């Protein structure tokens, strides 16, 4: 197999830099694997290791500081047939820490080669996440205050199924790289090396010292048995193949005559758990069965199981402009939290505004016509209040009619839920008809 080294772009590293050895080790590993150039994508990070893609005749993608694993993930998911190798320094490791941890957990078939030379070579030898505290680095005393990170132990804890360490100056480098690439899943190779331009100008580090340090460290032997599991891309494809086709969006054809053409506004003031948003949606669907246009704006707290829940529905026979509501036609006041959230709005209600209020809610002063509903006496539980109240509106032939409401229930529910919704609606209709009668 021919070399994939790009003859027109020879490596430009400082004399004695381990990076150059890794360039040739990687080239040899590609040859050992027998990979064709156009089936390899080299994704390089930043700094001196970020130059790697230019030295090879392969596909190449070079991006921003610490983000190489993010591009590699998109590439590999889109083209699983590619062998994707990421080169990164100990600098990229630190800045892209979140991506490293996620890649370990994900186990997509990527190979991460970390060219670890214990400092930021390109920017002046500042400390990185692997700089020993006793080193003289370009960040004054700062590295003395922090503990260096052991990459192999870190990625093992994060779930990587393959983590190995080696010296970039060792004879076995190409074989170490080959084994990491050949592994199916996320593999990490921590390659220790010498930065003559920065690090070893002030710190003594020889190939022998690297070998001795590596020999003293636990782990980093390659496959991590307890983390072995199916590769992410293959698992994704398997899960995907089992998904049923997505249903197209529900379409509601017009079949009823609208009650009133002009803009009608409904505000439902309730609390979490009262299915306020669903009730608003039902009103919308019901109006759509008459070919009307609808908007629905909702408000609820981030804590979805507590606090106010509000839905504002506008129904009209023409395009709806402004989606806010100041003088609603109908207000359903179903819980104190919702009423309190919109307390200030009550003064602006008109004399024609109809407020249907739960008996246990205290309302602020307002010119609106208020009708009280004792939901308890009706046998309507709090989660069904909103739907029952909507039925009480329909009974009055306001905004929607009972047949429209029933058709909306059919669109939205099925089976036992539909039966139960119809039972609730029946109670609301009866209550509403009592009041609607003169």
């Amino acid at each position, binding site marked *: 197999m021919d070399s994939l080294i790009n003859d027109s772009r020879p490596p430009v590293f400082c004399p004695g830099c381990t990076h150059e050895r890794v360039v040739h080790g990687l080239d040899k590993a590609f040859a050992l694997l027998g990979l064709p150039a156009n089936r390899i994508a080299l994704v390089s990070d930043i700094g001196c290791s970020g130059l790697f893609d230019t030295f090879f005749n392969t596909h*190449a*993608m070079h991006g921003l500081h610490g983000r190489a694993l*993010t591009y590699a993930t998109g590439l590999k*998911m889109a083209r699983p047939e590619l062998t994707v190798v990421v080169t990164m320094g100990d600098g990229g490791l630190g800045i892209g820490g979140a991506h490293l941890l996620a890649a370990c957990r994900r186990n997509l078939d990527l190979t991460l080669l970390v060219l670890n030379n214990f400092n930021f070579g390109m920017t002046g030898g500042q400390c990185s996440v692997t700089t020993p505290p006793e080193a003289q680095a370009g960040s004054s005393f700062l590295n003395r205050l922090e503990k260096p990170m052991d990459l192999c132990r870190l990625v093992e804890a994060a779930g990587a199924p393959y983590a190995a360490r080696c010296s970039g100056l060792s004879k076995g480098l190409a074989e170490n790289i080959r084994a990491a690439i050949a592994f199916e899943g996320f593999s990490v190779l921590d390659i220790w090396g010498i930065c003559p331009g920065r690090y070893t100008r002030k710190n003594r580090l020889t190939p022998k010292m690297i070998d001795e340090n590596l020999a003293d460290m636990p782990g980093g032997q390659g496959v991590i048995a307890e983390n072995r599991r199916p590769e992410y891309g293959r698992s994704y494809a398997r899960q995907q193949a089992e998904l049923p086709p997505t249903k197209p969006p529900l379409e*509601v054809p017009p079949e009823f005559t609208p009650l009133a053409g002009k803009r009608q506004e409904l505000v439902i003031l309730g609390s979490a758990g009262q299915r306020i948003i669903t009730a608003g949606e039902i009103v919308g669907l019901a109006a759509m069965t008459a070919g009307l246009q609808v908007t629905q704006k909702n408000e609820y707290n981030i804590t979805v199981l507590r606090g106010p829940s509000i839905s504002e529905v506008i129904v009209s026979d023409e395009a709806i*402009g*402004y989606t806010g509501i100041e003088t609603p036609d109908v207000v359903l006041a179903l819980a104190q939290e919702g009423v309190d959230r919109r307390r200030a709005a009550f003064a602006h209600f008109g004399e024609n505004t109809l407020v249907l209020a739960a008996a246990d809610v205290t309302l602020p002063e307002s010119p609106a016509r208020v009708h009280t509903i004792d939901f308890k006496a009706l046998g309507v539980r709090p989660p069904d209040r909103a739907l029952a109240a909507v039925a009480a509106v329909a009974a009055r032939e306001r905004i929607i009619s009972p047949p429209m409401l029933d058709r909306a229930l059919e669109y939205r529910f099925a089976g036992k839920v539909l039966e139960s919704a119809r039972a609730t609606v029946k109670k609301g209709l009866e209550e509403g008809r009592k009041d609607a009668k003169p």
Partner: protein
Amino acid sequence: MTASFMEGNEAIAHGAMAAGCRFFAGYPITPATTIFQSMLTLLPPAGGICLQGEDEIASIGFCLGASMAGLKAMTATSGPGISLYSEQISFAIGSEIPIVIVDVQRLGPSTGSATRGADGDIQFLRWGNSGGLPVIALAPVNPADCFVLTMAAFNLAETYRCPVFIASNKEIGMTRESVDLRSLPQPEIVERRGFAGPPPYRPFAVADGRDVPDFLPIGADILVRQTSSTHGPDGYITTDAVQIAAAQQRLDRKLRSAVDTFTYWEFYGPPDADTLVITYGVSARAARSAVDAARAAGTTASLLVLKTLWPVPEALIREKAAGAGRIVVVEMNLGQYVREIRRVLGNQHIDFIGQMDGRLIHPETIEEVICHG
């Protein structure tokens, strides 16, 4: 009308599917989350890929990788996430990677209010990248626009190999509305122009008379180079000032010179009204109500709704404003796009209505300015 009842965010997802989107990655954030949820429902069963990144930077990074592999890609977020996207947006601009980016704006600054609307990112979308080169941004008014403009956004991203923003707003994204998707005019779907010439392939070389390089995906038989570094036509780092200047000017020119071909807008009212209201996004809905109310009260005004915000459609703005004695600019911030209107219509009288309190601008606020200055 046979209609579906969906929020703007869902309509964006359907528009993306109709445009041929094959890859989505996002990170949950209110009020954009339902785009991710919708894509997760729609895309994998259709054979596409939908991922949840470990953060926003990863999500857009996945998309850039997938786009370079040849897939149409989209991501979606809100203010805090668009801030994190910044470095990757710069990459997409400078390295000509097609991507659609949805910003469902919420009230800022910073984490601000997750469930309150705003149009506070409009200048950020334009300038929130290093280098300051142009981008495309489209602004929907309602779910119907969300569907159609998302399709247009994909077409533009493919045509010009650039990031295209959808500048939505919580008040559009999370407001449900009846919409008949089938009745909407769908643009013809555009694919990025592939390299068809004999090797060598030079990834950033442009053919004569063109400003956009031909595309080959990473993984093609012919080798492809992509880099975020300042590069020459061959995709290698360059320090040649002549090459650099030519590339930068091309990136600037390729969008600015073409904006007239993708200027989306609506005009409402008589062409000769003395007052012209200019707005975009959800405020267009209140502005239309205000123009109607003003007419009922005896004052005639017209309304220009801009749906292409960046590059600024200067020719359209000048044409529509030509006969107007007064311009009223309305937006849900304290004065962002009005800067552009003032720049373009420097000699005309321009009034401004801005509001940034989490509430929609009320039609009466606009009507008051139309009728009484």
